[in-house]
C-alpha cells in the first residue's frame, strides 16, 4: 500500500474538511425581521416611545402642571396641538411626559413577573413532583381570575399608588411565564445533550442554567412583548379606576378617567390618551407577532 493510503485524518487536515463560511445568526435574524413591515413599523414606534420616556420632560412644549386659564378645554389648535384639559394644561405635553410613567410601570411590572415566572417554571419543570404540583396549582388559582379583577383585588388590599399597581400587574403576569417555561423545561430536559451534561458530572444548577434555560428562552421572548402590551392596558385601567396614579401625575389612564366628565363638550381629552394607549398596545402586539414569525425556523 502506498503512503497515501496510510494517512489518516488525524494527521491530515485538508480543504475537504474546511467548514463553509460562518453565517452570522444575528445577521440572518435581522434580515428575516426586516421583511415584516408591520413589525418594523411597530418597533420604530416603540423606540420613539422609549425616547419620549427618556427625554420627554425636556422636549415637551409646556410644563406638565402649567395651567393656562384662558384656554380651558380647548380643542386642538396651533398653540396646543392636542388641546387642553379642564385646567388648561397642554394635553400633548402631559401625554409625552406621562410616557415615562406609563411605560416604566408597565415594563417593570412585566420584567418582575417574567423573572419570577421563569424561576418558578424552571424549578417546577426540572424537579417535578410535589414542587411542580404546588407551583402549578398556585398558578392555576391565579389564572382563574380575570387579570383586571385580580389586579383590583391586590390593589384594594395594598392600597392605591403606582408601586402597588406594578406589584399587582407583576403578580398576574407570573403564571403565563411559569407555565410556558415549565413546558419548555420539561421538553428540553429530555434532550440528549442534557443527559450528556449529567454524564459529564454537571451539578443540577449548572444543568438548569447552562443547558436547559437557554433552550427555553425563545418561547418567552414573544410572550414578553405581548405582556408588556397587556401591562400597559392593565396599568391604564387601574389608573382609570382611580387605583393608580393620583390626579396630578400625568398618567395616560388617569387622564382618560378625568376626561370622562367632559365627553360631550370636549371629547379630545379622552380621544388622544385613548388613541395613544390603543396604538401602543397594538404596536407591542404586532412586534410580538413579528418576532414569533422571525424566530420560527419554518417561515422565511
Amino acid at each position, binding site marked *: *500500500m*502506498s503512503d*497515501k*493510503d496510510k*494517512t*489518516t*485524518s488525524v494527521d*491530515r487536515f*485538508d*480543504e*475537504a*474538511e474546511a467548514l*463553509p463560511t460562518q453565517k452570522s445568526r444575528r445577521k440572518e435574524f435581522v434580515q428575516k425581521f426586516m421583511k415584516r413591515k408591520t413589525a418594523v413599523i411597530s418597533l420604530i414606534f416603540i423606540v420613539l416611545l422609549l425616547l419620549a420616556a427618556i427625554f420627554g420632560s425636556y422636549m415637551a412644549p409646556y410644563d406638565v402642571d402649567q395651567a393656562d386659564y384662558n384656554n380651558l378645554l380647548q380643542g386642538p389648535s396651533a398653540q396646543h396641538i392636542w388641546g387642553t384639559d379642564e385646567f388648561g394644561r397642554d394635553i400633548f405635553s402631559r401625554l409625552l411626559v406621562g410616557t415615562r410613567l406609563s411605560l416604566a410601570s408597565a415594563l417593570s411590572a412585566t420584567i418582575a413577573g417574567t423573572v419570577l415566572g421563569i424561576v418558578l417554571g424552571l424549578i417546577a419543570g426540572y424537579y417535578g413532583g410535589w414542587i411542580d404540583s404546588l407551583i402549578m396549582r398556585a398558578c392555576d388559582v391565579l389564572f382563574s381570575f380575570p387579570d383586571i379583577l385580580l389586579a383590583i383585588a391586590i390593589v384594594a388590599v395594598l392600597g392605591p399608588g403606582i408601586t402597588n399597581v406594578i406589584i399587582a400587574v407583576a403578580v398576574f403576569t407570573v403564571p403565563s411565564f411559569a407555565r410556558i417555561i415549565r413546558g419548555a423545561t420539561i421538553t428540553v430536559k429530555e434532550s440528549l445533550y442534557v443527559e450528556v451534561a449529567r454524564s459529564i458530572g454537571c451539578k443540577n444548577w449548572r444543568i438548569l442554567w447552562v443547558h436547559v434555560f437557554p433552550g427555553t428562552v425563545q418561547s418567552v421572548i414573544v410572550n414578553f412583548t405581548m405582556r408588556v402590551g397587556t401591562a400597559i392596558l392593565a396599568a391604564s385601567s387601574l389608573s382609570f379606576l382611580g387605583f393608580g396614579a393620583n390626579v396630578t401625575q400625568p398618567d395616560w389612564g388617569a387622564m382618560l378617567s378625568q376626561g370622562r366628565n367632559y365627553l360631550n363638550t370636549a371629547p379630545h381629552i379622552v380621544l388622544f390618551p385613548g388613541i395613544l394607549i390603543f396604538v401602543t398596545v397594538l404596536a407591542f402586539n404586532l412586534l410580538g407577532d413579528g418576532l414569533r414569525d422571525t424566530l420560527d425556523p419554518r417561515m422565511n
Partner: protein
Amino acid sequence: MAERLLDVKNLRTEFQRDKSWVTAVNEVSFHIDRGEIVGLVGESGCGKSVTSLSVMRLLPPKTSRISEGKVLFHGKDILKDNKKEMKKIRGREISMIFQEPMNSLNPCMRISKQIIEAILLHNDISKGEAHRRAFDVLKSVGIPDPEMTLNSYPHQLSGGMCQRVMIAMAMSCEPELLIADEPTTALDVTIQAQILELMEGIKEKRNTGILMITHDLGVVAEMCSRIIVMYAGRIVEEAPVKELFASPKHPYTQGLIESVPKLGSDVSSLPFIPGSVPDLASMPKGCKFAPRCKYAMDICRQKEPDLTPVYGSGNRRCRCVLHDGDKGDKKEEVKV
C-alpha cells in the same frame, strides 16, 4: 432475452432552494428487466432515493421538477402520463416499499383497512373478496396469524411485521416492478435476513423485477445480480455484482468497498475515503469526486467525465477518466 420493464434515460431532477434550482440527480440512465434484482447503492445524499421518487413521480410538486429525461415503462414514457394514468400504474404495475415501516403505515387505521384500501383502489371487487385477498397476501409473506394482524394497529406490530405488511400491500396487486428503498435499514439483522429471504422468494415465484436501493454493500452482494453505484447525483459505475466486487473500477467504488468492515476478515484498521460528500448547491466543477480522489488529475477538475463502457463482460460502465475507452490493454497500474 428477459423482458425489459423499466428504462430510465438521462433523468435529471432539480430541487428549489432559496429561489434557485439545484440539481439533485443528473444524467441517470439504467434499466431493469423482469426477474432481476438490481442494486442502487450510494451513501446518503447521493440521489438514490430521489431517483426512485422521480420514477414513481412522488416528488413534492412545487419545489421539485424533472427537467430532463424519460422514464419508459414497457416502452411508454410515464413522465408524460397525467395524474389519473399515473395512479393506475402506482401500486398496480410499479410498487414501492420504504425505509421506516412503522412510519409508512397510518397509525390510526387498522391494518385490514389499509390493505383493503390498496386492493380496492386497483380492483373492481367486493369488500369481502378484498378481505380474502388481504388474508392470502399476508399469509404469502409469512405472517403466522393473518387474521390477528389484520385486526391490529401498526403500533402493535414489530418492525419486521410492519415491513412484511408493507411488502404484502405492495405485492397485493401483483406488480411487475418493485422498488424497495432501504427496506431493511431500520430492522435488526436477523429480521433483515427474514425479509431479504422473503424478497428473494417473490422474485423467484412471480418473476418480479426489483430495484433494491441501499447503502449496505453486504445486502447488494447477497441479493443483486447487477449493481449501480451513485455519487453526488450521478451514476459513477455499473457492473454485474461479481465483477464489481472483484475489480471495482471507479475510485469511489473502490474506496467504498475497502472501507466497509467485513465479517471474518480480521483487519485492525480500515482504509477510508477522506473528506465528505459535496453540498448540492456547491458542487465542484469537473468530476464531483475529484476533491476526495487519490488519483485526481488536472483534467478531472476541469471536465466531468462521461459514463462510458468499460472493457469487460460487455455491460460495465464507469464514469472516470482512468477507464475511459479502456480496451483492456492498459495495465492495471492504477489499482493498488
